[in-house]
């Protein structure tokens, strides 16, 4: 009897505590959640709503319901698919290069015993610099009239980097890779730090070559770090906009999906079509995230939060 009473008492105390914690917890997160949702959930719902209308800001009286017409138009338009292709290409190439270069940088930093402060400082500068400025710096660097790249590569001084799709895309990717590789390398460095030196030593003693140690010991042990880095960078790269805006403004077929959406909404004022594209952009980012998470079988919340 006393035992039951005691248990009941404890349960009551626990549930009181739980209740209090529940309520305090919610109150503490509420402001942050509200602010996050004001700018995302509401506009997204509104975008869904607007996307079924033919609605242009310059001719508000002509607003009419078109059902899924905007989606049909967008999805059957070659421009949408071309821009999606460009975006995916940029994402794959930049993330791939960043992963390799970032890993090399991380290895160097990991082994470095001197000049660590200098390296850390320099590597943070591209990370912190404004993307638009990175775009400008590289645009000017590739410019035929005032840049140095053509000269250094011993190319014809009249070669116009921004006059061809491939060279313009290359310039855009260089600016993207330059700015974001440091972020990648820092995440990988943290991953490297998690790989136990003992295991690497043990492998060495067992006669494993450098490559074997890399593939069998180091990489598998920093899988989570690599996945998080790739996931975040890939989603970031899929949303590429700033560099394209300042470097080519979408000319020479260098437009990304974000840029296409921006033009419909902000330049053409086609809120209906623009909203449909916004929804498609959102869904494609979700799809990319889903594919990556599935492919890597990473529980992101776990990796990030140890919940």
């Amino acid at each position, binding site marked *: 009897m006393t035992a039951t009473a005691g248990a009941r008492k404890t349960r009551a105390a626990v549930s009181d505590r739980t209740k209090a914690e529940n309520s305090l917890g919610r109150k503490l997160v509420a402001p942050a959640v509200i602010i996050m949702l004001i700018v995302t959930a509401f506009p997204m719902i509104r975008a869904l709503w607007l996307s079924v209308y033919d609605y242009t*800001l310059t*001719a508000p009286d002509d607003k009419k319901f078109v059902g899924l017409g905007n989606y049909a138009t967008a999805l059957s338009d070659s421009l949408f698919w071309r821009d999606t292709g460009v975006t995916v290409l940029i994402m794959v190439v930049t993330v791939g290069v960043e992963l390799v270069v970032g890993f090399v940088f991380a290895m160097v930093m990991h082994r470095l015993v001197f000049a660590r402060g200098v390296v850390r400082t320099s590597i943070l500068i591209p990370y912190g610099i404004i993307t638009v400025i990175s775009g400008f710096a590289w645009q000017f660097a590739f410019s035929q009239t005032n840049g140095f790249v053509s000269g250094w590569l011993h190319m014809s001084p009249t070669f116009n980097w*921004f*006059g061809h799709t491939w060279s313009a895309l290359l310039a855009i990717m260089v600016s993207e890779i330059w700015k974001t590789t440091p972020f990648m390398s820092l995440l990988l460095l943290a991953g490297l730090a998690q790989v136990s030196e003992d295991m690497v030593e043990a492998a060495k003693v067992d006669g494993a070559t450098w490559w074997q140690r890399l593939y069998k010991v180091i990489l598998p042990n920093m899988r989570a770090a690599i996945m998080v880095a790739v996931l975040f960078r890939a989603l970031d790269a899929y949303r590429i906009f700033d560099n394209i805006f300042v470097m080519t403004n979408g*000319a020479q077929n260098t437009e990304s999906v974000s840029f296409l959406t921006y*033009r419909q909404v902000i330049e053409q004022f086609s809120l209906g079509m623009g909203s449909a594209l916004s929804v498609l952009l959102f869904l494609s980012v979700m799809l990319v995230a889903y594919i990556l998470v599935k492919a890597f079988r990473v529980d992101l919340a776990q990796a990030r939060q140890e919940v």
Partner: protein
Amino acid sequence: MTRARRGRAVAAVGAAVLAGTTLAACGSSDGRATLNVYINPDAQATMAKLADQCSTDKYKLEIQLLPSSASDQRTQLARRLAARDSSTDLMSIDPVFVAEFASAGWLATLPEEYASKAVDDDVLKGPAESAQWDGKVVAFPQWANTQVTWYRKSLAEKAGLTYDDATQTLMKDGSPATWDDIIKAAADNGGTVGVQANKYEGYVVWINALVMGAGGDIVSDTEAGTDAKVDIDSDAGKAAAQVVQTLADSKAAQPDLSVSNEGTSLGQMYPSGGAGEFMVNWTFVYKNYEGLIGQPGGPANKAAFQDLGWARYPATVSGEESKPPIGGIDIGVGAYSKHKDYAMAAAQCLTNTDAEVAMATEAGLMPARTSAYNSPELKKAFPASLLELFQNSVDTGGLRPQSAYYSKISSAIQSRWHPPSSVSESSTPGNSASFLKDVLEGKALL
């Protein structure tokens, strides 16, 4: 208690921040009403001076600068106006966007007393037309721009092109030189041809002039809005495409052709080596080089400056007179302005003969009014033949389509005609016509 206090504290901080920023952003004034004038950056210094002169003891004009490209200017203004912004009192507006702005109800219609003066007989035909929409006057023409052929006399001479004084035209074997003649003349004599062919509005200026110069147009029946008739798939469209194609394939093309704008070819007139260029460009060019004598990018000396020639815009096809592009700026009054009456008076002041003379003499932006062309100041600042050429070009030039959907039309053309090296006489006009139709019907993405 703690919860309430915390809530209040957060709210107070939030309110303070919001209040502080709104106040900081609002600005102050000295009792006079402040009228914002959104200007394009062509003549900042002159506009600032005019804004001072046109301010009265009741209101003060304050200059706000717009970005440099015509489409960016449109975007910035349109966003403010779509937001029913009451602080957009006056604005410089490119004539091609007047129709769009007016049909969206963003421009205040001029009351009769202002309308009659804004487009009276003194105003040249092109600019006057550009300020009207749907039978109403919706803007004050401020200055009128046009393009002519700027060239090095020495280069033309070497190439056997002669200048005919009576028609102010470059002649090849006794008839007005066509684009083909000029491209060939440049290519054979170490010169280049400067145009505007970046993916932007300036490229459409060129294409439109080429099409109209061959007797056609891009679209007609533009009052029908999205049901306008698309005409670019025609002989005139093909002739225009042929010129673009010829230049893109020629060694007279400047290396930055596909990203060229009004500024990029300026440096090619007096290059450190080479014969110089033929360049179609706006009226500011004369003042530009005059100011650059002896400086990098400009004529080395007075004599070199004397070598700068000007002639009527080149013909697209032989036997058809060219249609020089018309540009310029109209001043509009925002429909949501709180001070429309003041704004109207200010706009009139910014566009009177004196103001136009100042714009021309100080910034090389030519007047929309005949009286300004005839003023002694202008006659002193520009050679008589140049004034005559400008005035003639504006009077006989071709406007770009006046349509509420102009920006769609323009973007559609840019999308199919850029880069210049992709243009083909056989396919580009047809492609762009069907694309433009789809765009206007909402069947294609732009």
